[in-house]
């Protein structure tokens, strides 16, 4: 296994995070860093602590020890400022079912004090490939994939330097997954720091420059893309299923 040596500025810095929920240790001394322009995938099975790691970075969970630092600001002390820098895509992309895609995006952006024109929202919806005839329909009539695409469009429109993506391709069809991965890579090229948590080994290998393997709340190893090549899927898959990284 190759270890990454970082040269770009660090956007996300998880420092020995310990998080306990309902008297159960979910994160156990979890440490990792994500630089700007980098896609980092936290890979792990169910209950490994992936979503908890994201929610801790967002300040939804308070660590018992350790700290999360975003662009040099500690989450525990500068939450409001940090949330302005982060676009978050939750696992179950839940937007308002009574609003249509446009209204949802406009409403949530307005809460974040981000102002976008209709044209910009249209471009974003086109970018995520949401059918145009669905734009004015309420989300209650959307499929899971369509809701996911709307949430992705919202996350993109935040123009945030940091993206936290929780199982972002869940519910998307293969074509849409491919398009989404392209989008993520292009955002990283534009300088965004992207942390995605997933159990999709192939998807992670396709987009991430580094993959952290999470088990029982602790990072048990990292895979780093070598030069312009993708991380070897088979090697990651083997380690993921075996649970051991040598």
């Amino acid at each position, binding site marked *: 296994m190759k270890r990454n040596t970082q040269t770009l500025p660090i956007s996300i810095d998880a420092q020995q995070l310990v998080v306990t929920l309902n008297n159960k240790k979910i994160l156990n001394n979890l440490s990792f860093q994500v630089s700007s322009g980098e896609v980092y995938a936290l890979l792990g099975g169910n209950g490994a602590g992936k979503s908890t790691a994201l929610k801790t970075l*967002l*300040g*939804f969970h308070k660590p018992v020890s350790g700290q999360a630092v975003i662009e040099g600001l500690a989450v525990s002390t500068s*939450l*409001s400022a940090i949330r302005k820098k982060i676009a*978050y895509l939750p696992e179950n992309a*839940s937007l308002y079912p009574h609003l249509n895609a446009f209204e949802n995006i406009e*409403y949530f952006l307005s*809460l974040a004090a981000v102002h976008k024109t209709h044209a910009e929202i249209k471009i974003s919806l086109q970018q995520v490939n949401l059918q145009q005839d669905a734009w004015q329909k309420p989300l209650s009539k959307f499929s899971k994939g369509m809701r996911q695409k709307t949430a992705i469009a919202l996350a993109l429109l935040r123009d945030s330097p940091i993206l936290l993506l929780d199982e972002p391709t869940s519910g998307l069809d293969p074509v849409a997954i491919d398009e989404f991965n392209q989008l993520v890579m292009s955002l990283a090229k534009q300088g965004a720091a992207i942390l995605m948590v997933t159990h999709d080994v192939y998807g992670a290998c396709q987009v991430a420059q580094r993959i952290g393997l999470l088990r029982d709340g602790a990072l048990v190893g990292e895979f780093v893309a070598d030069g312009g090549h993708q991380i070897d899927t088979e090697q990651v898959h083997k380690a993921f299923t075996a649970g051991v990284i040598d």
Partner: protein
Amino acid sequence: MKQNLQSIQPVIMWKIARDEWRYWFRSKLAVVALLIGLTCTMSTVVVSVGDAFELEHQRGHAQQQSEQTFVNQPDRHPHRMVHYGHYVFKTPPPLGMVDPGVDSHTGNTIFLEGHRQNSATFADQKQSSGTTILGALTPAFVLQVLAPLLLVIMGYGVVSRERETQTLSILAAQGLGYGNLILGKISALLLVAMLMLLPLAISGIVVLSQGESLLTLSLFLVGYLLYLSIWILIIVSISLWAKSNSVSFSTLAFTWLVLCILMPRVATTVAGVMVPAAGKLEKDFAVAAELRQLGDGHNAKDKAFVQLEAELLKKHKVNRVEDLPLNFRGFVALKSEAEITSILNRYAEDRMHEELRQSFFARQFGWLSPQVALRTLSMLTAGTGLETHHRFLRETENLRFNFVQRLNQAHTNKLNYIDDMNRNKSEAAGQIARISAKNWNVIEGFKFRSSPSKERALQAMTPLAQLLLWFGMFGLFLRNLQRHYS
């Protein structure tokens, strides 16, 4: 989601409130609930205002007619006029059109006659069809009982819905704090409450034109606004605490049932237990027994008046009642009426005292239910509470006593004793035993007026304090909950 007061943003709150309204408009249930609420308040206010004008006109007219009929009676024996009697009517106070209070149970008309204190009659609840005995649909009932239920239907999911659909995390990720979220939801519900209160506020113009003071009207409206605000705080607190929509709704429905339906009944029952009062029949028997000991005021020869006769003969230095410079029968009626009234008043005051003590205990339940607190405040400021009804009873009793005694005075001084004693011997004798109709001008014009506004405002201070305590308590509870979830 940490947030302090400095970070409260009115624009964000407005956006959240506006979106909640958008949700309600697109959700049929909420729109139906809102329409029912508005229709109920609007229609009851319109109907009640119309009824109040009609009632005031009818009762004013009836009062005038009753006085005129009494005065227009021909020459008669004065004691026949004592029993001819006279009706008095309670004209509703201006705010009575919104909250008829105890008037709908106690009655609004009293027949005044000699030797008796009749109860008020023609209570709306007694003369209406059977179902209205459960509570007529007045604006006060709609706002005190139905409006909180409609707010529950509209608001139970304001926060629990966000939690259930997991939009809370998206909202938080946009940098939105719980404080702004909760204040936004409160604003949305407050707008609903104000819409429900709008017909009441509009009726305030009519109320003011009817002579109600601005102070009382303001206190009345503030009380209702405070009450609905308390419900909003309860709704948002429970919606914030509940893990799901179903838990939120069932908890709020139970809370409404306890606070608006059960507690007022419990209050009345407990008051009845704390201050046991004898039934009407029991009291009537006790009064009758005591009155029997006084003797029959119609019969001057009754042995109860032997001493009175002796004293009077001695005072006027004569040997026979026929030689007295006054009509002994009239004098007996005068004295008898005073004694009877003294006993009747004692019993009436005891009964009113009992009622007030019961009412005192019932009103303490305002510390346990905001509905009880508002009901008390509403009745007291409207001038339709028990105290006002008691004042009506005292004023009418005063009127009764005065006119009966004036007639007895005329009987004593203007009708010859011998003519009086011979009145039943022949028709001609009966004609002689009469006095001029000019003597019937003994009725004072009666118009029942509300208590001064300051007095009513002072009476309403305790229920107002109860409402403020509820408001403060749930305000703090919600603030702590918000901090807990932040």
